[in-house]
């Protein structure tokens, strides 16, 4: 307390109540910040225990020989060195890249098209929005099983319909007949399931563009295409960035659709990277190797996201 006494003796009297009020205010702010931290504590515990801890653990696992049962032993470069020898990793990386590019282009085009189709209030727009979004209410694993039946020769109508118009004959297996048809089946499934969700995000972006901007473009005599090119696209950039990030990340991490619909086949031609990780961990029972592939995948995704954010930030400023 000596400092307070000294200061109060140097200052004229009226400073006293003000200092006291400030101190009490400081105390209240400190207490309020403690209360805030208390409300945030459950979040911190959840994020710490179930996100940060496993993230550190997976890095530690990747530098150990870590069998599913039994004690781990340190083996630093081995798990990473073995990634290069794993032939399945090579083909899975290539396949996942191909799938990501194809899927992102098709899904983006379809979702943007749907959003443009239903952006204005007209008759039946509510029904269309619901119809496009409804597949989202079906779980992705269920949707994969739905398409397994839909595309099957046993009970599915697709092969029958194509046979009736003479496009195919005999028994057709869409989901495991050839690598191209297996990939195609999966892409149709993902388009059906996720187009409406992405449409909804882009719809919110479209509706955030003020009507006045369109009116100004119309008064300036801009054609429909010019309006789209010069007004809609630039103003949609943040939304487009969000949607593309979601699509790319989602495709790189694809698992359910291949696990259920194609089982990675035929001949591992539709085996994605995450399927390889699962196989290393729970079929080959080698958690260390699975962790090493995971860490490598994580590093690539972080770099991609940082580059993407950097590019977008530079463009928008």
């Amino acid at each position, binding site marked *: 307390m000596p400092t307070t006494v000294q200061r109060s003796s140097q200052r004229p009297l009226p400073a006293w109540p003000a200092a006291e009020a400030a101190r009490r205010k400081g105390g209240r702010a400190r207490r309020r910040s403690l209360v805030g931290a208390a409300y945030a504590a459950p979040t911190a515990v959840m*994020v710490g225990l179930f*996100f940060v801890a*496993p*993230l550190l653990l997976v890095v530690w696992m990747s530098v150990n020989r870590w069998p599913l049962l039994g004690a781990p032993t340190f083996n630093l470069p081995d798990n990473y060195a073995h990634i290069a020898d794993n032939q399945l990793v090579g083909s899975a990386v290539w396949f996942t890249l191909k799938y990501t590019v194809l899927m992102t282009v098709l899904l983006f085009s379809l979702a943007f098209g749907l959003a443009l189709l239903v952006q204005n209030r007209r008759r039946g727009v509510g029904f269309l929005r619901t*119809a496009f979004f409804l597949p989202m209410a*079906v779980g992705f694993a269920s949707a994969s099983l739905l398409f397994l039946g839909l595309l099957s020769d046993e*009970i599915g109508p697709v092969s029958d319909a194509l046979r009736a118009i003479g496009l195919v004959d005999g028994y057709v297996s869409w989901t495991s007949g050839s690598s191209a048809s297996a990939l195609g089946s999966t892409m149709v499934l993902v388009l059906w399931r996720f187009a*409406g969700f992405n449409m909804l995000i882009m719809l919110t972006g479209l509706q955030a563009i003020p009507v006045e901007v369109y009116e100004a473009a119309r008064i300036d005599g801009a054609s429909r295409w010019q309006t789209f090119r010069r007004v809609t696209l630039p103003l949609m950039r943040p939304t487009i960035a969000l949607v593309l990030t979601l699509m790319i990340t989602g495709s790189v991490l694809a698992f359910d659709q291949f696990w259920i619909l194609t089982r990675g086949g035929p001949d591992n031609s539709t085996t994605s990277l995450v399927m390889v*990780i699962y196989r290393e961990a729970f079929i080959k029972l080698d*958690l260390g190797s699975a962790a090493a592939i995971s860490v490598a995948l994580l590093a690539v995704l972080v770099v991609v996201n940082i580059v993407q954010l950097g590019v977008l930030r530079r463009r928008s400023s």
Partner: protein
Amino acid sequence: MKFVSKAGYGVTGAALAIMFLFPLLWSGWASLRTSSGFGLENYDRLFTSDNGIRPHHIVNSLTVSLLTVGGTLLVATLGGYAFGRFRFPGRDALFLLTLAILMVPYATILIALYVLLGWFGLQDSLIGLSLVLIMFQLPFSLFMMRNSFEAVPRELEESAQVDGCNSFSALLRIMLPAVRPGLITVGLFAFLASWNEFFAPLILLNSTDKFTTTLAVVNMRTASHGSIDYAALEAGVVFMAVPCLLLFAFMQRSYVRGFTSGALKG
């Protein structure tokens, strides 16, 4: 010209709507179709065949969904209140860290979580699975609830404090009713995600009596050597989808509104 574009819109819209609705309608039809017409035989096989759904699978699914929805609402409400209304040290860092969950591959942390939950004694446990699912819901839910709390006028909270409420009773009496649309959206998302989740239970649950319904239905496909019972499979798809479609139909308005107003702002 105007007529042509109107007709073009109608035809395109109708064709697309049919293409999106057809798989759903077909699965309902196929699940009821039997060799002799229509009936519930496929559903019969779904619940009685060797690799089918058992009552305890449904109980497991409901348990996980209930724990996940409750836990997500609890953590995200308290967290959203903290992030929307208070300043405290580490606030921005914790928020960014939570959002970073979205950037990390599911598989990456699940392998470590498999080991970690074993250390906690939560291996092959529905509680362990629910805790993990709550964590995966947090980025979206916290973001949503923070925006909801930020949107509540300050005067409302201040008037409660003048009336002698502390921050917790202000939260219960004044804030919670004001952020209800956000709560409904967060809860609905948490239910849909946990009811339908496949990858996390596949990794974290080992014994078939702990399986959720999704795992059990998928198991009918993956565990069958030889021929798949497609009709029973479609019955399983319908059984899984009906609760989600019903919830969706009841809550679509608040769901879409909550989504468009909260999730994508700021």
